[in-house]
């Protein structure tokens, strides 16, 4: 009987050790997987230089020659970006379409691009916006967030806001005033677009335009799981356009594809739109459009008319 008990004790001891080892291992690994870093999706197609019209990677659409911008009005440059909690600046890349010398009198669309790739991927979209109303009537500013394209650093949530704000500082230094600044965000870019419209940064945009916005990290998790799970199970990201939009008072333009299979129009875009309590809002639900093809599905001219009318009439 004693032998049996000893055997059991030895077995339990070995099992306990193994169990303890496993628990220590698990605690060590605990939390090592988070969605945060993997939500950012820069440089699917890596680049060594910005090629813009000569870029041969995947695109959502390519514009014909009628939308061409003269080389003299295309400016690619570096600018420093520093978040409040950082001790040094990160060099990011920016692109301005228009005459830099006339920023002091022009209206400028600050275009915050989406999650994929870099400015080469979004060049067609920025170029399209530069054709709003008429060619180069509005200046267009675009940046590659840190970690995207040739910008230094690694993508972070605070980095998105700091980088977009760095672009605003650059524009402000060139003479842009709040009343001539229009903020435009697409997909992930709606996060800095809303944040910088809602809170105090270097400039206060006069209008906010969102294309295929997401509501919050919570909705992304809940759409993916089908259940009312807290986002904190998987991510520490605090991005929450659905709440931030409540602070926005500027006129607001929303456009979303009804067939968006990445950010559902009802659980994401409509929530943001409905939560807006500012002075003016307009919605454009585009039938048959998915996440990345609103301008071409809507029709480039229809899209430009909607954008242009909002900017000039409100």
């Amino acid at each position, binding site marked *: 009987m004693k032998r049996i008990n000893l055997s059991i004790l030895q077995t339990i001891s070995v099992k306990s050790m193994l169990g303890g080892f496993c628990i220590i291992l698990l605690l060590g690994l605990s939390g090592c997987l988070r969605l945060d870093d993997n939500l950012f999706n820069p440089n699917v197609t890596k680049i060594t230089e910005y090629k813009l019209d000569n870029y041969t990677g995947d695109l959502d659409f390519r514009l014909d020659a009628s939308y061409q911008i003269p080389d003299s009005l295309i400016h690619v440059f570096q600018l420093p970006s520093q978040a409040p909690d950082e001790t040094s600046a990160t060099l990011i890349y920016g692109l301005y379409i228009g005459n830099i010398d006339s920023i002091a009198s022009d209206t400028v669309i600050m275009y915050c691009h989406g*999650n994929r790739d870099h400015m080469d991927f979004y060049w067609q979209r920025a170029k399209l916006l530069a054709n709003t109303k008429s060619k180069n009537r509005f200046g267009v500013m675009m940046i590659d967030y840190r970690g995207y394209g040739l910008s230094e650093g690694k993508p972070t949530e605070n980095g998105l806001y700091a980088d977009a704000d760095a672009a605003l500082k650059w524009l402000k230094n060139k003479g842009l005033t709040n009343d001539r600044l229009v903020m435009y965000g697409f997909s992930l870019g709606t996060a800095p677009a809303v944040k910088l419209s809602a809170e105090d940064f270097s400039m206060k945009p006069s209008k906010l335009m969102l294309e295929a916005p997401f509501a919050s990290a919570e909705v992304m998790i809940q759409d993916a799981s089908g259940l009312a799970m807290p986002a904190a199970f*998987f991510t520490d990201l605090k991005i929450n356009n659905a709440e931030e939009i409540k602070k926005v008072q500027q006129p607001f333009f929303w456009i979303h594809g009804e067939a968006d299979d990445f950010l559902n129009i009802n659980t994401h875009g409509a929530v943001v739109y409905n939560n807006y309590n500012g002075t003016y809002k307009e919605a454009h639900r585009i039938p048959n459009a998915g996440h990345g093809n609103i301008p071409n599905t809507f029709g480039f001219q229809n899209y430009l008319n909607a954008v242009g009318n909002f900017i000039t009439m409100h």
Partner: protein
Amino acid sequence: MKKNPFLLICITAYLFISALSSCSPIKFIKPLEKNQNAAGVSLGGALIKYGTATIPIPFLTADYGYGIDSTLTGFGSFNITSALFGNFQLELGAAKQLLKQNNYFPAVSITPSVNIIYRNTDAYKFYPQLAFNAFWEYGKHKNFVYISADNWFELAQKRAHELKQPNHWIFMPTIGHSFTGKKWNFNIEAKIIAPNLSNQNLVVEYQTPLKKRGALGIFLGYTRKF
């Protein structure tokens, strides 16, 4: 937007699978003998399309069971995958045999359980589950084949931003086989996870016989009895 790295696909799939499948992919269907202990691991996951290949999502749990009596086994399952995300996820439950096998009429058991997920005081969930099982023993080793109707319940009425929570019942029909040794069990199991829910508009493309609904999961389990 859909060209996400593999890890993102795995993680997104994990969201769907971990949320919609139980903490323990393979449950106790047939109770243990009285005072018998069992410890094991389960591995497997839903099949997704990745590039041109179909691959399972890795999903790992550690399980322990104890035979309270010959018809009732208590068990707990610790979700290792969830722990890698920094969450404590535990399933606690019991398997109760209600009917014995009578020739071709199967033995019947039920498996009520609760699934607890805790990250911090602001992020925790509690999901009740209930599985109805039927199993047929055969041969001298008492291997058995089983079918199960597993049900997961979402109690929340609201989801983020005060939207109505659309799904309250997730159903998982399951078929499996257990190879039984004196000191071990080896299980293989296939289940359709949430055939009542659309699998569209997700980053992941699931491989399922139902095309636009649910996900097909393949799971393996090894249990050591002592």
